[in-house]
């Protein structure tokens, strides 16, 4: 059951990622990405990570991608260049590089992954929010503070960049 749900969501995620990368309309790109993030959240939920699934939807679909759509609509970008159009040599090199990076990652990770290992979502019975919160306030307190500084810096930077000089 879990395994079938995972497979269905995985296939759908790949299909919509392809659409997000190749389609010519930026709005369709962003919407496909909304679907991708939705299916990733569904995968997290299926694996028992309910808190992560909710955060994924709230932050990515609810805020980041809405911001993307806002900018696309503000700049009124209707249609952009075709996927892989332009200089053919560079495009071929780019594609080769992307696949090479992917191959490198797979090769690097290959030794780490257990071939037979597998897990059931039962590992997180009782919800993951409480243990995540506890760890955030103990083991990972410093990174947590740091990320808030990063966010504030980004906020100030974004305002400074987008402001009209007057």
């Amino acid at each position, binding site marked *: 059951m879990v395994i079938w749900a995972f497979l269905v969501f995985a296939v759908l995620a790949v299909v919509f990622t392809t659409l997000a990368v190749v389609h010519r309309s930026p*709005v369709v790109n962003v*919407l496909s990405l909304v679907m991708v993030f*939705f299916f990733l*959240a569904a995968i997290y939920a299926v694996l028992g990570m309910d808190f992560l699934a909710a955060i994924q*939807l709230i932050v990515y679909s*609810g*805020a980041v991608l809405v*911001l993307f759509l806002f900018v696309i*609509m503000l700049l009124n970008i209707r249609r952009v260049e075709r996927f892989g159009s332009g200089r053919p040599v560079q495009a071929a090199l780019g594609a080769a590089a992307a696949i090479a990076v992917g191959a490198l990652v797979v090769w690097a990770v290959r030794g780490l992954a257990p071939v037979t290992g597998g897990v059931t979502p039962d590992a997180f019975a009782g919800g993951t929010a409480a243990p995540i919160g506890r760890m955030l306030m103990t083991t990972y307190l410093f990174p947590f503070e740091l990320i808030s500084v990063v966010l504030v810096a980004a906020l100030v930077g974004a305002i400074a960049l987008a402001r009209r000089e007057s």
Partner: protein
Amino acid sequence: MWADVIVTLVKLGVVLAVMLTAVPIMVWVERRGSALIQDRLGPNRVGPFGLLQPVVDAVKLLTKEHLTPEGVNRFLYYLAPGIAMVVALSTFIVIPFGFDPGLELFGHPIHGFLVAPDLNIGVLYIFAVGSLGVYGIILAGWASNNKYALLGGIRSSAQMISYELAMTISVVSVLMTTGSFRLDRVVEHQSHAWLGFIPAWNVVPHILGAITFIIAVFAETNRLPFDLPEAEAELVAGYHTEYSSMKFAAFFMSEYINMVTASTLIVLLYFGGWSIGPVLAHPQGWGGALTSVAVFGLKVAFFLWFFVWVRWTLPRFRFDQLMAIGWKVMVPVAVLNFVLVGVMMALGWPV
């Protein structure tokens, strides 16, 4: 196993039926209520007190011609109202509509009035799904190929992000004192009394949070004074300018369903859900459970009326005012509430 599936399906059916019935009733209340506030009669021809007016409206909308404007992106144009409806209807599965004293039907436990009783993330689920609702409006604005619709969509995206922030931060304090995301726990936490007679509703210690939350949900549901995405004086009809017949009806219904969600959330988070202090905290049997549903319904009805009341009383904000209030007032006040409640908890006060 199968019994659980059937129970869940029946609950889903009942909740859907109640929601879809609530919409025409709210439309009637809105029209008669606005007439009352503006000192006129309102619809009074169809049925007693015009009660059948929404039915006639629905028939009119159903039989109207489906218009599709030139040059629209057809797929997105048809998808947008669907997104709005689906998102509005799917938030209800984590809302407990009444107390569960261990109800059984034909000897089978039905887990109270909650469609998804095992979902631990409760409130977070509502925010997660609710945050997708904005796509319906943005897409409608974009796909319509109309400048007013586009402006409505842009406004809506900026407004939703800004007020979602204030809304989420104000809820954090409630979750903090409750120690759970589950809404039935939130109500449980409020089911006692201070000094023996003051209901221990969250609205008292979390007063700032309650105010920011209520204001933010007005913005999230696109209701006056925050209905900038469809401001008819400036944008014709905003994001749904190009929508007619049932496609318009879908947007219209989703707005009312979102109002019901917002009202249930206000009642559950800040006004004790179905409990009135210790009264109805743990009612027994079917009678008690149904009484708790009725009390909950009455409280929700009050806030639905509050929505109508505010809409016909307050004028609309300007867009720059809207953003200024969102970022310079709502967010700081919500954070202040969060800090205050934290201090109260640290001091060991009964919050």
